[in-house]
């Protein structure tokens, strides 16, 4: 039994969620806690990371991330396999984040995209930037984390799901419950805001 479980664990870790072993999913549907722990193993970092960036509060994030997995376990019989498991988990996470934000009285901020300091909102890629040769510094990451925190929740969720979690437009549409066209629009706006923030950071760095 132990060997079988270890083999299954390996299968889950080394495959995408679309290839998740059917046995594990059917065991989860039968409320098998051991099988479900393999799913937690595989997704805990992604779900926790998403929730932490959405809520910007470690305590809330830990609580909500736990809630995501508990809800998933208790409602696993509702998972019909039409969406991938990751999409389903991110959908639960997204809904719980919205609920928590509402409870905390935080309303999603309105999106302001007025160009500031002469920077257009639709700049093409900065010619100074060469992803092949430039290393992403931790300061740059910090600047992006701060810029992410400034995005409205609806823009942030789409950006994180697409650019960090690599979900497709269709998967995000299902997870967040918005049309594909809206996903693209929000992604475009979110990237522009982030790019502006990073430019401000780079300009500040160049002046120093």
């Amino acid at each position, binding site marked *: 039994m132990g060997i079988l479980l270890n083999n299954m664990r390996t299968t889950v870790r080394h495959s995408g969620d679309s290839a998740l072993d059917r046995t594990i999913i059917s065991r989860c549907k039968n*409320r*098998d*806690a051991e099988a*479900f*722990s393999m799913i*937690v193993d595989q997704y*805990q*970092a*992604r779900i*926790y*990371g998403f929730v*932490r960036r959405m809520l910007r509060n470690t305590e809330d994030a*830990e609580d909500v*991330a*736990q809630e995501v*997995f*508990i809800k998933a*376990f*208790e409602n696993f019989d509702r998972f019909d396999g039409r969406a991938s498991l990751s999409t389903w988990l991110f959908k639960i996470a997204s809904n719980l984040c919205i609920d928590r934000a509402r409870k905390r009285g935080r309303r999603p901020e309105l*999106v302001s*995209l007025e160009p500031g300091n002469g920077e257009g*909102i*639709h700049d*093409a*890629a*900065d010619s100074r*930037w060469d*992803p092949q040769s*430039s290393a*992403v510094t931790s300061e*740059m*990451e910090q600047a*992006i*984390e701060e*810029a*992410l925190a400034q995005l409205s929740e609806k823009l942030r969720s789409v*950006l*994180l799901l697409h*650019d*960090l979690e690599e979900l497709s437009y269709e998967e995000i549409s299902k997870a967040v419950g918005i049309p594909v*066209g*809206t996903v*693209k*629009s*929000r*992604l*475009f*706006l979110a*990237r*522009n805001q*982030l*790019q502006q*923030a*990073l430019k401000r950071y*780079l300009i500040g760095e160049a002046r120093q």
Partner: protein
Amino acid sequence: MNREKIVQKVQHEERLTPKESAFLEAMLEEQRGQEAVAVVKSLKRDEPSLAWRSSVNERIAKSAVKPRRSRQFIKVAPPVVLAAALTAWFVLGYGGSENLPGANSTSITSFLYEWHEEASAAVILPDAGTDLDGFLNRTGHQSRSDVDELLYGGSVIERL
């Protein structure tokens, strides 16, 4: 294609024409090369703490032993209750009493008792030369039968 106009429509989440959608796709492709996108892709994923994980395990284990009563009950209960209610209505209510003999009975017990008495009386036949009035008094047999009335226009016993 008016770029500003498309951006405005995107900001207001307005529906785009197919041409505008294609233009938005092109702008998204262009953004792929931006440093901000590269930095987001490189962001680290935090692993939650071991305490967090053990708390999840504990809650899942608790949830796993809880009987899955609610949804099963909700699925099964309404048809069972409906069937029971219909049966009770049919047997005890007017729907049953109108069609069954012993319509005066208010309960199954009294109806069965009455039905049994009538059936017993029907099979006890008087011998030849028996005092008929005495027999009827002894057996409690009714002197007038609805069936006789219907078939012969009066009680057969009275004609004897």
